[in-house]
């Protein structure tokens, strides 16, 4: 199983930066997410989490630092959270942290919806821009 490292670029701000590290058991997604063909972008990330939880079976931490994600991206993030919830239910150790800009009043509601829909606990952390 390999790490995933995707850097963001000012010319394509609709793709987030991604760092999934097998050894550390950490998955980080940051920046903005509103690309075309969203599922094509997220499928390898979703499969990585499935692979990690099925085969590596160590503690896993998902850190989301997205300033903006479109509704198609929210569906993909929900897919990831559902996999992590299943892993947690089977005894796996899971931590989900969501870093948000406190000047954005709508992101906290969004995270509450993710918690309700996936059933997983999400730690909200303010980040300084």
């Amino acid at each position, binding site marked *: 199983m390999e790490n995933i490292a995707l850097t963001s670029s000012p010319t*394509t*701000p*609709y793709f987030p930066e991604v760092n999934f590290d097998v050894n550390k058991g950490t998955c980080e997604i940051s920046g903005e997410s*509103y*690309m*075309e*063909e*969203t*599922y094509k972008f997220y499928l390898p990330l979703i499969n990585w989490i499935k692979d990690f939880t099925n085969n590596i079976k160590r503690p896993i931490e998902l850190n989301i630092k997205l300033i*903006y994600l*479109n*509704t*198609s991206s*929210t*569906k*993909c993030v*929900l*897919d990831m959270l559902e996999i992590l919830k299943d892993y947690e239910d089977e005894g796996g150790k899971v931590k989900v942290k969501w870093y948000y800009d406190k*000047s*954005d*009043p*709508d992101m906290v*509601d969004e995270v509450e*919806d993710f918690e*309700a*829909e996936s059933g997983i606990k999400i730690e909200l952390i303010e980040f300084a821009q």
Partner: protein
Amino acid sequence: MNDTVLIMTGKTILSYKGPFYIELISVFGTNIRNFNDSFSNARKKLFKIFIELSQNVSNYSEDFHMVNNVQRIGVGELTLKETDASYVFTTRNQVKDKDASILAERCELVNASDQLKLRELKREQRLNSPGEKFGARIGLIQAVMLSKNKLEYHIDQINEKFSYFSLTVKVDKN
């Protein structure tokens, strides 16, 4: 003053007609978010609504360009106007006649729902969406939840197969 009058009298900030490439949507969106220091909360909401509705045109317009015979890019129109109290964003694109009535029904359902009901609908819809190319199917709900104003829609029939569907969302500055 009703919304239609507001749309007619507002100052045009942005107007575009053509293929809705992501590169263009992104540049327009970034400008909307950053074009001045005032009303930053309203502009953050406007940016999110702008991206959602523009991507609906890009993904679903029946008039489209094919890029390299693979990627389908929807063609449509957008207009952003500013009044003293609000931003008014409109998209317009071609749809099949039968889809125009489905869209109109969706707009009516969303307009008839309060914030609590909208949140419920959003959760239900996202959980039940088949995903993949269909996305989350919650763009219209999200637009009303963010703007707290009703959607305005208008259908102009082109022929027995196609219509133009235009959608307007008003974002209050305060």
